[in-house]
């Protein structure tokens, strides 16, 4: 509890981080209560209202506050439902890459030697490709779908976790408490996961927060290129791809989905900066 209080004291010093957290909580609430908040269902087409502008423009109405798209679907409702996809993508990608990355990094840092070399060389290969390019090719391999896009992004992101975990584990291995645990005969697995790992978590949490936003951005980019979530899924990147041909005729179908992506990513990045300030011992004033 005292730890949590200390964490909050550092975290709340960064005003941007608090704003980011507030905004992020709002997005989570919107995603959870989408069924109550959205004025329309995400895929219902209103034949009488194709490309209707937002309510404050001529021809707009409060029935569709942010206008409708080319097949008469309510943009606001699709954005609200879209928040579910973005958060879902972030959670899945971060969990896959975090767990795989921690496991590999822990093995590399703990066993060193050949295991270490093998794991790190493979990670070097993954990092040699520009991330989005590798994700694109992986999706081409697996077939375009939201699930495959998430797997591809997770594969591309996990080397960062491996490197961070390995570096932290190597740092901890020489400390006295690890030697002490070894001396009293703690089993290897317990030593790895229970003794060492919890002390390596701080940089990983920060990385997880920051890669949550990268995951959302990359998934939207893949959706935009037609290789992520497929229409009519109300995923924000996919919505942008569908709206592209109308950019000079209907600015709202292009502007709002992108704004949603930007604000979500911005909120998470603000929060990540605050987390780093609060958790990174190097920056902490003693």
């Amino acid at each position, binding site marked *: 509890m005292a730890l949590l209080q200390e964490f909050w004291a550092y975290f709340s010093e960064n005003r941007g981080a608090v704003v980011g957290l507030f905004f992020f909580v709002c997005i989570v609430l919107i995603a959870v209560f989408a069924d109550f908040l959205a004025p329309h269902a995400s895929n219902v087409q209103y034949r009488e209202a194709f490309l209707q502008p937002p309510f404050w423009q001529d021809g707009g109405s409060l029935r569709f506050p942010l206008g409708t798209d080319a097949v008469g679907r309510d943009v606001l409702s699709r954005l609200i439902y879209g928040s579910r996809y973005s958060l879902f993508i972030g959670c899945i990608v971060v969990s896959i890459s975090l767990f795989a990355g921690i496991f590999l990094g822990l093995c590399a840092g703990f066993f060193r030697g050949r295991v270490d070399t093998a794991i790190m060389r493979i990670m070097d290969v993954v990092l040699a490709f520009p991330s989005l*390019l590798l994700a694109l090719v992986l999706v081409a391999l697996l077939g375009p779908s939201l699930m495959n896009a998430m797997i591809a992004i997770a594969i591309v992101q996990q080397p960062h976790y491996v490197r961070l975990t390995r570096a932290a584990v190597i740092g901890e291995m020489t400390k006295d408490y690890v030697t002490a645990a070894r001396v009293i005969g703690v089993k290897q697995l317990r030593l790895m996961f229970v003794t060492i790992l919890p002390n390596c978590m701080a940089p990983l949490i920060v990385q997880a927060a920051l890669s949550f936003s990268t995951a959302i951005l990359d998934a939207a980019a893949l959706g935009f290129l037609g290789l992520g979530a497929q229409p009519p899924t109300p995923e924000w990147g996919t919505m942008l791809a569908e709206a592209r041909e109308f950019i000079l005729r209907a600015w709202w179908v292009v502007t709002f989905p992108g704004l949603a992506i930007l604000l979500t990513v911005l909120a998470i*990045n603000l929060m990540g900066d605050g987390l780093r300030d609060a958790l990174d011992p190097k920056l902490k004033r003693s």
Partner: protein
Amino acid sequence: MITFLLRKLGVLIPTFFGVTLVAFIFIRLLPGDPVLLMAGERGMSEERHTALMKEYGFDRPVWEQYLSYIGDLAQGDLGKSIITKKPVTKEFFTLFPATIELSLCAIIIAVFIGLPAGMIAATRRGSVFDHTVMAGALTGYSMPIFWWGLLLIIFFSGILGWTPVSGRISLLYYFEPVTGFMLIDSLMSGQEGAFSSALSHLILPAIVLGTIPLAVIARQTRSAMLEVLGEDYVRTAKAKGLGPGRVIGLHALRNAMIPVITVIGLQVGVLFAGAILTETIFSWPGIGKWMVDSISRRDYPSVQGGLLLIAAVVMMVNLVVDLLYGLINPQIRHTE
């Protein structure tokens, strides 16, 4: 310095072979008959299939196939595109200058705005300017650049009508490419208006592609500068009575530049990833758009070759950056 170079190469060479392995395996993991995928023909007869199987070497053991792939690679042969039937390497190097031109302009924009912005923000820490720069940098860093490109098109092409929407130069101009860089070629062609047409086509994509590097450079410069400004030698320089211009320009800036240069070098991978999106939005005929098109056309030999060549370029540039960095900062040479 030699040992430093050798150590870097010692890591790089196995990594490169790993990359070739990834490119090699890629085409074999695709669902479907690899012969059909490579040849891109439909309704193939049994004999033709067997003949092609032999031609591509799919009838031999996998390790032999890999060795002959490496052998071809050493001779610069990466296979032929299914669609255009031209060698993949030729396609790549025809389009590559367009991507380099775009990336160079993007990084120039990023450095020329990002560096001074970060510096001024650091020297006026806590000021309105500082907060604005940092808020702008965080926004740029969080920007979905494909959307940013569309917004700029709406505003500058749609509403103001200042810039064209796509391509590298207006169809009114034609000249044989000499350097492959449109800005230089258009100047050399001597045709009136060609240069300004090329420039107006380039400016929006370059801004879009430069956005994320700009944000990263501004943030990095600011934090590096803040760190250096707190050092003892800066205090000494101030105490000696040197003017702020000399203290910041001479003593602080040089040392703050070291991490900043690394960050600029690291942007190469980011630029390639960004080029995929930027080129797609602006129909810019470069490597990024070519990769996306190849994927959607199922032109797998091109995807395979492009993947390998792009990774090779990124690795080369990173090596050069590492070496330069080692040259500037001896500490790096002597640590693991």
